[in-house]
């Protein structure tokens, strides 16, 4: 394809991505290297309906002069990346140099917000991704073998967890897992434990979130796998049957190899989406026991009235780097394939 044709075809898409994604990413990256100006404080008297108080406030004129001099803020280099809210290099160094054994190191590092968020994010990503792929594959096999007239409704029902807005979906599920809710009460009855609460302990909260995540993402894997099943090479299947392969063998030696490319795609998308897990943590009020990188960004931007753009920017860049590391095997494979084709 000629450069000129290529440019003409890719232009609208590339322009949209450059303007609305690449440019913001650059500005986010720049922002993460700066911290705000020194705020000049003055103590004043504030009065309101509930009486008067001595409080500090920012002196706008003095601060404005500082802003004028350095519009981006003070250059901080990688300082924000290394501080306690992110990689916490100093704190980790202290912990490593002075501790009471490996258990102490782990619990103290886990106490640092970034590592706490990272551990849940990784556990979630590496459990939900394979679980929803396996579940999606099983459902796809099941749907594939039912009579045609049921397929439409069954596909719709199977898609429901993916398409009902998580905003309300998680609220309703959260209510259902209450000890008085239909799921919570049923579990109490099954395990014969009236004190069982899915929301009280860290372990159960993690399990709840992971089950929810699997439930939510399975339909995506299902749709793609189901479509893949439609393109099974009939002749290979038939020859396998003639060779006397039973159904398991056929799935193992014909169906799964055929679906591997699809599985790569599904895995790629799921890894990325799961790594950015955020909504269920809010929906299930799980902040006490489980935080994620995306949640940290949200907390910096929306947690209070003071927005910490630099901190959110640094976490975002770290999230991006994390995704790149996760995807590295796939990227390398794609690169090899690409080179093979290009040759």
């Amino acid at each position, binding site marked *: 394809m000629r450069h000129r044709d290529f440019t003409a075809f890719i232009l609208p898409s590339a322009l949209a991505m450059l303007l609305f994604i690449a440019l913001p990413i650059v500005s986010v990256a720049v922002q993460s290297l700066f*911290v*705000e*100006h*020194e*705020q000049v*404080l*003055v*103590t*004043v*008297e*504030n*009065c*309101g*309906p*509930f*009486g008067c*108080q*001595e*409080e*500090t*406030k*920012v002196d*706008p004129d003095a*601060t*404005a002069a500082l802003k004028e001099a350095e519009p981006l*803020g*003070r250059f901080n280099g990688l300082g*924000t990346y290394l*501080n*306690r*809210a992110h990689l916490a290099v100093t704190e980790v160094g202290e912990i490593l140099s002075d501790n009471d054994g490996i258990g102490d190191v782990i619990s103290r590092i886990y*106490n640092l*917000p970034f590592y706490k968020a990272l551990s849940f994010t990784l556990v979630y990503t590496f459990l939900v991704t394979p679980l929803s792929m396996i579940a999606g594959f099983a459902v796809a096999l099941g749907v594939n073998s039912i009579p045609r007239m049921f397929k439409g409704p069954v596909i719709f029902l199977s898609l429901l967890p993916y398409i009902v807005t998580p905003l309300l979906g998680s609220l309703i599920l959260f209510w259902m897992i209450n*000890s*008085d809710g239909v799921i919570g009460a049923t579990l109490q009855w099954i395990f014969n434990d009236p*004190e069982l*609460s899915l*929301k*009280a302990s*860290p372990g159960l909260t993690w399990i709840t979130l992971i089950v929810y995540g699997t439930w939510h993402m399975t339909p995506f894997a299902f749709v793609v796998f189901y479509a893949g099943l439609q393109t099974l090479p009939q002749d290979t299947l038939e020859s396998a049957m003639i060779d006397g392969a039973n159904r398991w063998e056929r799935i193992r030696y014909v169906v799964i190899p055929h679906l591997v490319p699809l599985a790569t795609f599904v895995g790629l998308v799921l890894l990325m989406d799961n790594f950015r897990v955020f909504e269920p943590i809010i929906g*299930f*009020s*799980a*902040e*006490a*026991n489980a*935080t994620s990188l995306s949640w940290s960004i949200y*907390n910096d*931007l*929306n*947690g*209070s*009235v*003071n*927005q*910490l753009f*630099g*901190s959110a920017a640094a976490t975002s860049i770290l999230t991006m780097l994390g995704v790149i590391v996760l995807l590295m095997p796939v990227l390398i494979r794609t690169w090899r394939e690409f080179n093979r084709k290009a040759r």
Partner: protein
Amino acid sequence: MKTLTTTALAAIMAAGIAGTAQAGCGIEGGSVRILANDFDALGLVIDEAASCAGDGVTVESNMTTEHKSLQVPALTVDPAQYTVAVVANNSIVPLMNNDLIRPLDDLVEKHGQTLQASQLIKIDGRTMAIAFMGNGQHLFIRGDILDEAGLEQPTTMEGILEAAQVIREKGIMEYPLAAADQAGWYLANEFVNTYLGMGGSFFEPGTAQPAISGEAGVKTLEMMKAMTEYMEPEYMTFTADEMKAMYLSGDVAIMNQWGSMVNGHIDPEGPAPEIGAATVLAPAPTVGGGSVPASALWWDGFTIAKNISDEDAEASFIAMVHGIRPEVAQENPSAATWLMKDFAAPETAMGVLGTAQAGAKPYPMSPYMGLMHTALGAELSDFMQGTESAEQALADVEAAYTTAAQEAGFLQ
């Protein structure tokens, strides 16, 4: 602020819909554009303000839960996207820090005859906002349960613990208490309430240095933890909404709940009229032998943007003052704890007013209080779940706060 009332009224769309009899409200012309949080009582005020539209005056509004994220960029541009930002104690702070709102003294003098002196939020002697509603947490007590247990009405947090003990021992309820301890904003807010009751201060005077890890901080945490003994095990997920549902289903005997939610709890048309009838509303409790109620007081008010024409500013001020004229409060007495002149407070507002009269402190308006609030919300949950000591939790809070404050330029 996280104002604890209710959802929106219908959207009040652009100019001219509502304006009839008093079109103009005496405004000569201009554009009024209001940004506000999304709950009923604010909708009422904005509705009234919108009735000033007509005759070259346009009134538009945007009520959204995302208002906090929008207000700074929206008021930074010139001319500002909104002329009026409806704020509370905490959400006025970023507008002040960035110098985005104008002093209102001249407008108050010219058009503010219906306002009371106590409604003016004066910062360094200049009026920066006009408050019209108050809010705060106070006690909601099931009178019938107290009678059954033969208890006096508790007025201190220690008394509440003793009452809870008695209620449990008599087998009336296993978990008689509830508090909004959801990790994050609510948990931090509980700490702020109790800590104010303990007489603590959050910062070294005149600076942004944190000062919470002293004795008052430890005692505050111990008290909060002691209360959770008498709460259902999932207390770390309780929000104000959740508490209301629990209270209405008869699971809770005593709790410190938002004044703005009173109507939802005692509504005779509501889901549990018998619980509503048995409810006693009392001022917030004191704690640790202090005399200050353990509850922060909040106000909601309006501010006028700086980066707009004087004509729009004047139009906005008049429209908003029209929206909060004393008649609005008189006609809707139960909608909120109004701060307007001649407001005859109904029974439902007595909890908040009683707490205020007992000398409760307002939620701090320091420029860096929001950072402290976030740090508290994120770092206290380990202690509340019993996996960390109080001292360690407070040290974590100070470390998290210091990191954030350095980034925001408050600490070096």
